[in-house]
């Protein structure tokens, strides 16, 4: 990305919800700018007139009655402007809320300290698909995200696509979004949630329907069986070194619920909720000492011998 570019921005909307809010932003910004300039111009004028009156002396040139009229007029104008902005705000709110459809893709996102559990819902349980810290959405199709939290309050926010929504334990709420531009959009937790609130991000990949369906089909698959000796040893170690007590790899015995599903971990864009690029080297470094890039994370350090790390790494690399 070119320098000066930012990865996530309210000012570059990529879907109808974000567009509609952006229009409201423009209206508010220009109205506010005009009001600001007008008020400060009056302050400046009052300052000039007032200081001149002190220097020159003599009675005040403005009668109380005419001043009262001007002040009343300014108050009336304030009320009108505010009423206009209120109407615009409510109208935008209704419009944003109306952008939804029954045929939408439904995704359940559950917040954890400090990662996002993502489940693509389906009426048939066998067609549900689980991943973490990454959403794919088809272009031009509404998506509904049902959010809740397993521990503390988090907030799901993808500035380019939609406003934020809190993930509150004990509550499930739904938020709609839609991407009209292909690309990778970053989202980030926006409610303070403890030590690693800063490193609780995720990616949203917006892609054409076909690519999305292929991705989702692949996500539903269990992990491919280990191909070589190294991978087999890696799977063994995944259980023996207690990775499996927290992580799930579908198609194996690993079924831990406390941490991200790793069935297709090697195909994801980032590691540790957007903290690191998901390269083989970063995966190994992360296992060795996750506390270094993300102090406080719930994942303990695993200083494995080189042989074991090579095998475990090879296995994880194979989880495409």
């Amino acid at each position: 990305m070119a320098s000066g570019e930012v990865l996530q921005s309210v000012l570059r909307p990529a879907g109808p919800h974000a567009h509609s809010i952006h229009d409201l932003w423009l209206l508010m910004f220009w109205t506010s700018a005009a009001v600001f300039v007008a008020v400060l111009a009056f302050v400046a004028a009052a300052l000039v007139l007032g200081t001149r009156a002190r220097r020159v002396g003599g009675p005040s040139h403005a009668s109380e009655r005419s001043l009262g009229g001007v002040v009343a007029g300014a108050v009336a104008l304030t009320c009108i402007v505010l009423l206009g902005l209120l109407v615009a705000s409510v109208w935008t709110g209704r419009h944003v809320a109306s952008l939804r459809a029954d045929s939408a893709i439904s995704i359940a996102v559950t917040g954890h300290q400090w990662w996002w559990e993502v489940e693509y819902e389906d009426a048939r349980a066998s067609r549900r698909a689980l991943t973490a810290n990454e959403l794919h959405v088809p272009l031009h199709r509404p998506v509904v995200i049902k959010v809740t939290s397993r521990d503390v309050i988090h907030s799901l926010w993808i500035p380019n696509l939609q406003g934020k929504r809190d993930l509150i334990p004990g509550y499930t709420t739904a938020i709609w979004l839609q991407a009209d531009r292909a690309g990778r959009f970053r989202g980030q937790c926006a409610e303070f949630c403890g030590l690693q609130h800063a490193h609780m991000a995720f990616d949203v990949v917006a892609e054409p329907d076909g690519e999305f369906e292929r991705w989702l089909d692949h996500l539903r698959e269990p992990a491919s069986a280990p191909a070589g000796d190294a991978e087999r040893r890696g799977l063994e170690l995944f259980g023996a070194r207690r990775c499996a007590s927290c992580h799930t790899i579908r198609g194996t015995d690993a079924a831990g619920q406390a941490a991200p599903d790793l069935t297709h971990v090697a195909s994801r864009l980032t590691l540790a909720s957007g903290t690191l690029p998901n390269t083989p080297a970063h995966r190994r470094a992360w296992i060795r000492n996750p506390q270094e890039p993300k102090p406080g994370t719930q994942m303990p350090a695993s200083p494995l011998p080189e042989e074991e790390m090579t095998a475990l790494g090879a296995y994880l690399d194979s989880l495409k």
Partner: protein
Amino acid sequence: MNTHVAAAADAELGTFERTWADPPGWRGWCAAIDHKTIGRRYLMTAFAFFLLGGVLAAVMRVQLARPGHPLLGPDLYNQVFTTHGTTMMFLFAVPVMQGLGIYFVPLMVGARSIAFPRLVAYSYWMFLFGGLFLYVSLLLNAGPDVGWFAYPPLAESLYAPSKRADVWAQLITFTEVASLAVAVSIVTTVFKLRTPGMTLNRIPTFVWAQVVTSFMVMFAMPAVMLASTALILDRLVGTHFFDVEQAGDALLWQHLFWFFGHPEVYIIFIPGSGLVSTIVTTFSRRHLFGYLAVVLSLVSTAFMGFGLWVHHMFATGLPQLGESFFTAASMMIAIPTGIQIFCWIATMWSGRVSVKAPMLWILGFFAIFVAGGLTGVMLAAVPLNTQLHDTFFVVAHFHYVLIGGAVFPLFGAFYFWYPKITGRLLSERVGRWVFGLLFAGFNLTFFPMHVLGLHGMPRRVYTYLPEMGWGPLNLLATGGVLLMGCGVLLFVFDALAARVRVGTEAGDDPWGAGTMEWATSSPPPPGNFPRPLTVGGREPLWDNAPDQPVVVGLRPGMRDVLVTHVLDAEPDHRQKFPDPSVWPLLTAIATTGLFVASIFTPWAVVWGSIPVFITMVGWFWPRSASDGGTRPWPVNGRTLPAPGEMPAAGGAI
């Protein structure tokens, strides 16, 4: 003959000052109840906490100056930002405004003392001990780290097992006790101790602002005390108010907290706007334009301030109709604020304006506060709020509102009232530099944060990735802090220098102002007014008749105070006020013991209340049957003493 009268008057003045003075020595220091002593302590302590909170802010800015900066880890950063917010809200903004109230409200209403002076002394000690408790905890690596808003479940013991969240919750208890005590004292002072002639529509706007704020304190603070007590109970004895697993509710906290938290903003801003009215009036050399409208704006702001709390919760996903109501209410509150701004402009417009140092801060206030108010209107719109909430845009917004709306007027007030408090003027030339540094530094620090928020930077992050593109603007913001720091240091230096006799002598009324505090010497004597002046207009020093009557019948050798009627301030009776006492300090020590111990064991509430009870018995122990109490006002059938009527010799009645 004349010299004889003068000597008698001098003797009477000496008796009067001895009667009202705090006792000498360290014991007297502990027993002080003079509202000016307590007010000064409040102001200086709150300013010290402002400096500490500022240091924490600077540390945060250095940490965020570049991506991945290793200066602070998340654990320390969370303690620092929580302590910064908690300090600025509870240990600076509210107490500094109440400190001004304690010092100036009795003077401005022509009273000899604040009502309940011992309670106010107790309040100061509680405030001081609470603040020390917070900072000792921070130094022991037990500073609160759950945010100044302490949302459960994050603040529940499951996710915050150490004592840090308890420190936060108990600090709230300390500061609430302190501010409630001041609030009732100020309301009582204004309603019952005004000098004759100061009818409701002659009360100075700053005093109105203090009354309105005090009422807000009384209605808002109980909500947060309730909430923080429930949190302490959850953590200490395992209740389930906010425990989702046990049918508690995480959103309940947010409603209770913001029912306090939003009015809190106005508790800080309303005194600020009272300061603006005062300074604009004085330096425009005319009565405030639209006094009634300004006062009614203050009152209506206070009412509306209680109807906006949900705009802190728009991202929780509330029903749309409810959201629209709170959007409308949040926008509507801009109207009374607008009315005040227009009245201030009209006052300057038709006045004779001199731009002395205090006025400079008011001009800065206009620029900053109006910008902050406008971003507030943006945040009131639900759709936009869902994008901007909990981002640096909000950080920018509320610093524009609070620093613009409260701290700039406050600095104006420092320059305005410093001569009254110390008898010496601050330097105009240095004042211009201080203002310039703070104004430029402030905008450099906080303006870029609007853009950062729009570019997706959330609040309360201890670091960010280099590829986010937030580095340059963060560096700029950190640079601004340097300027602000220089400005504040220069101010402190100038204030200290002026204190050690570099400053010009002020005289009673260096600005030619019109309110009562300027009718006595600088600094005012103990007891404020040897012969309280009655009031013949809104700005007594401008409006009073040359033969304006003075109050008679108060014994110079007694702590006599004239109590008046609420509406028209007609004399009602005189009351003997309490003497200085160390019991408020001892009670505060006992209360502090109870509060601190009770974060470790619930039994502290039982055993700790015994010393509190004992010290309170000492506090209220009557000295004699004839002591204290009320006496009927002697001038029968007359609301005011006759013009020129002098106090009877020896004050005998």
